[in-house]
Each structure stands twice: as structure tokens, then as C-alpha cells.
């Protein structure tokens, strides 16, 4: 318990420093909010075009589809605001050898690099996404109750865990290959497929997005939960997949750290 409190204090101190650094550039905070709103608009445009000629696609009405878009935007904000700045910096730390200083602290290095650069900059983005999903869900003929909303949030957490784990896999390879910035951009692009319900895709793409890189699970499942269409089994599967990804990421990280050769002085 004492150890947990210590860890929480350390995490808080890390985030405090990161936020203070971010505040140095306080205008960006306002800018981010405006960009998020614009971005949401652009994300919705293709859907408006697609739905102009028909009522529903693969069992998803326009409004229901916007729930997926909302979840997608929130997840994108989480990736860009909390996962990418933290784990993306590991590549730099490895290249410059300054990961040394992280490894010299008496706290888990993975935990520290995962929170050290969290900033509030993308909170507006996440807020816009959640608001869109919430508003659209409330306008459903059969709006979700608190329980369904809770499950949806839990599934969003699972999605975050999966996304985080995939990113850990990517940065862990930097211990071998050093330059992996491009791989993280690939991840951001693949996540883009999550802006539509996974049933919109067919064939190999759908298999890929369901079983290999479960983007479908990440954005479609929370929306299905809000629509009341996700079975308990589906929710449990998402939990299990998230746990498996987290565990695997931990193992990969620990193997990678032993390979760390530090940049020479």
C-alpha cells in the first residue's frame, strides 16, 4: 500500500512537470480545442456523403455511425495526447542514451516512460469525441442507461490498453533498430480505419482489423455497447484481449530493456 502511494506520488510529480512544460506554450491549448472541432467536422464529411443516398449501411444508421466516429475521435485524442508523446519519446531516449536516467530511478521504467510526458493538450479532442458519442447515443430510439454507458467506457479503456500495448511493441523494436518513428505513424494510419464500424470492411481487411490489429474491437465495441447490441461474451472477450495485449507488452518491454546498449558518451 505504501509502495502504491509512492508510485502514485511519483506519477503525479512526472505529470506535473510535463504539464508545466506544456503550459510554457499555453496558446497551443486553445488552438488544440479549435483544431479538434474542425477535425471532427472533417471526419464526419465522408459519412454525410455516404449516407446521402441511403438510410443505413450494414445495420448502422447515420446517427449510430456517428457514435463510432465519437469513440474514434476520443481514442485518437488518447493516442495523440497520452500514448504517442510518452512512448514516442522512448525512441529519442534510446537514440540519445538518456534512457539511462530513467533506468537509474528506483521506479519501474516502463511506468515512467508511459506517463512522463502526458499533457492536457489533447483533452479537448477527447472531450469532443466523447460528447459526440454521448449526444448521438442519447438520440437513439432506445438510449443507453448508466450500466451500458459504464460498459462502453470500460471498453474504451480496453481499447486504450490495446493501443498502448501495440505502441509498446513498436518502441521496443527501437532497442534493436533504433529508428522506428515511421512505424508509429503507420499505427496512427491504421487506427484511422477505426472511424467506421468494422462491418463496413470486407474480406481480408476485416479479418485483419478484427483479429490481428483489433481496431474494430477498439472503436466498434464501445459503440455496440451504447446501442445495447454487445453480448456479455463480447465484452468479456474485449477484456481478455486487452489483458493479453498488456501482458505481452510487458514481456516484450522487459526483453527489450535487457538488450538496451545505451548510447556511448
Amino acid at each position, binding site marked *: 500500500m505504501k509502495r502504491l502511494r509512492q508510485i502514485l506520488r511519483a506519477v503525479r510529480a512526472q505529470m506535473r512537470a510535463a504539464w508545466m512544460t506544456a503550459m510554457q506554450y499555453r496558446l497551443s491549448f486553445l488552438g488544440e480545442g479549435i483544431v479538434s472541432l474542425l477535425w471532427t467536422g472533417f471526419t464526419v464529411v465522408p459519412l454525410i456523403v455516404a449516407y446521402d443516398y441511403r438510410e443505413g449501411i450494414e445495420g448502422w444508421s447515420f446517427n449510430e455511425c456517428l457514435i463510432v466516429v465519437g469513440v474514434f475521435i476520443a481514442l485518437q485524442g488518447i493516442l495523440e495526447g497520452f500514448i504517442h508523446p510518452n512512448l514516442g519519446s522512448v525512441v529519442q531516449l534510446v537514440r540519445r542514451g538518456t534512457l539511462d536516467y530513467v533506468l537509474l530511478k*528506483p521506479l519501474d521504467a516502463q511506468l515512467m516512460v508511459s506517463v512522463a510526458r502526458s499533457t492536457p493538450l489533447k483533452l479537448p479532442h477527447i472531450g469532443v469525441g466523447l460528447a459526440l458519442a454521448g449526444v448521438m447515443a442519447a438520440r437513439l430510439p432506445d438510449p443507453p442507461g448508466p450500466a451500458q454507458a459504464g460498459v462502453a467506457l470500460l471498453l474504451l479503456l480496453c481499447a486504450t490498453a490495446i493501443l498502448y500495448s501495440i505502441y509498446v511493441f513498436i518502441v521496443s523494436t527501437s532497442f534493436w533498430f533504433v529508428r522506428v518513428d515511421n512505424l508509429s505513424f503507420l499505427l496512427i494510419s491504421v487506427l484511422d480505419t477505426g472511424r467506421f464500424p468494422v462491418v463496413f470492411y470486407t474480406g481480408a481487411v476485416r479479418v485483419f482489423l478484427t483479429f490481428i490489429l483489433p481496431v474494430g474491437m477498439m472503436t466498434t465495441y464501445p459503440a455496440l455497447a451504447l446501442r445495447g447490441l454487445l453480448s456479455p461474451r463480447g465484452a468479456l472477450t474485449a477484456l481478455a484481449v486487452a489483458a493479453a495485449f498488456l501482458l505481452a507488452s510487458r514481456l516484450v518491454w522487459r526483453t527489450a530493456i535487457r538488450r538496451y546498449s545505451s548510447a556511448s558518451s
Partner: protein
Amino acid sequence: MIEVEGLTKVYRSPKKAPGLWGSLRSIFYREYKKVTAVDQASFRIAAGERVGFLGPNGAGKTTILKMLAGLLVPTGGTVTVAGFTPSERRPEFLRRITLVMGQKQQLLWDLPARETFELNRALFDLDKAQYGATLDELIALLELEPLLDRPVRNLSLGERMKCELAAALLHRPDVLFLDEPTIGLDVTMQVAVRRFIGEWNRRNGATVLLTSHYMADIAALCPRVIVVASGQVRYDGALDELVAQYAPDRHVVVRLLRPPTAEEAAQSAPLSQVDGRMEALVPVSEVKAVVDRALRTLPVSDLTVEEPPLEEVIARLFAREKR
């Protein structure tokens, strides 16, 4: 405090044929060669000792230091520091050591140094009162007061190094690993850093391991030196003995009130005339006799006996190695 036995580190580094064709080939087929950075190093360091690591670039000094600090996993041999195996990086171990690297920094670039100190307080879970006392002591010793509230990016290199030292010592470690702490600093700042390290060791009895390119650092701080070349320990012992062993001569220089007569010059051998003064390299055992004779026979205005500079001693050691 530190026990090292047969310590070895082998890196696998990619071998690339020269030119564009070589680069293309290495994408598909990569050959590796093994580079032995540290080869069977063994030594023991007692608590409170100050030990300098000497050696040419790429000798393996930093690799040894990083293995001692737990950043690198040894390929072979055993290391214990304060009773711990460093590569396990247990929190209790990390609380007892610190590593300062002259070429890298832990200070938060955009924020004042005070914020890095606060962060380290949380990361090391330091008691508030004890942290305050240590910080006050460091501020006084390093004269940090005027630097604390300026963003680190606005500090000079020397000022930054002072803050780096403070950040690294807040948790009062027993073992200090210092990798080129004075690199790039001007002479005044080098002296300040050196003085601080010596004072800290005296006050706290902390063990200090230092690598430096500046022999003055080693000469001022380290009674004992370990010389490393090609990953192997070539000398381990007192600095004085190293000098005695590899620099058995002293440079005796006599300045004169007037040019000596031929007879005076002949009597004062082995001293010979160079640019209006008399000088010679004299074996330590004969220095007294030579100086006595010079004082008796020559019109002396000034007389100095100097050890050769440490740089020269080390150069001689490596020259002998190569032969």
C-alpha cells in the same frame, strides 16, 4: 563496497561493407562482428575510496561504469555494488548509487532546475525535511541560489553541470559514478566541480568512481587509479606509484644569476645548458645529490624540481603497452 570479478562485455555490432553497394547489401544480409568492450576486468573498491579510471577513448571506461550502475548487462563475470547485483536494478540498489554523465543531462530543459529537484524528490520518495536539508547543503556548496529559478535552457554549460550534480545527489547515494563530469567546462568551473566532489566525499564518506579526460581531475581527486586499455585493466594502484613506476625521472631546472663558467658547468653535470638555464631529467634517487651539487657550484637564482605531467606518464604507459 564494489567487487568486480572477470567482468566482460561483448557487443555485437553490424559490419558494413563500404559504399552504397555495401549499404544495400547490409539491408538484406547483415554480418556482425563481436566487439569486446571490457575483457575480464577485476578489482575491488572499498567504501569511501576515490578511484579514477584512466584510458584512451574507447578503452571501456564508460562501459565498466555503466555495468556498475546497472545500465548494461554484463556478458560475463560478476559485479556486486553495495551487496547488490547492479543489472537487477532493484530499487534499494538504485537509491544507493548515482551516475552523472558530463555529456547527457537529466534536467528538464524547459523548466527551472528546482522542478527537476522536486521531481527527483518524488521519484526517490525522499522525506521532506531530509530533502530540504540536503538541498540547502548542495545549494551552499555549489552556489546554486541564483540558478534555481531560471529555465535550464538559459543556463551555461558549467551552471547546468552544477545543477546536474545537485539533482544526482539529492538522495544522498553512497556510491557516485562520475563519467567525465568536467567535460567542456572552463578551468574555473572545472576547479569548482572538482572541489565540490572532494568536499562531498569528505563530508559523506561516499565512494567516488571518476572517469575524466582531464588529468587534473584525477590528480586532484583520486589517490587510486585504474588504467584501462582495450577493455583490460592494465594498472590498478596508487597514483603516486604509477607516477614512480612510469616516470622515474624528475625535471630539474636551475636559473642562474649569470652564465656559468666552463668549470662550473662541468662540475654541475648532468645538468646542461639550455636557453640560458641549466636543466636535466634526473632519476628520483639522484635528485638530492644533483640539487646539492648545483647549489654549491652554480650562481643559482631559482631552482625547480618537477614531476612530468600526468598526461606524459599515461602516454608512456600506453607506449610501453604497445611495444
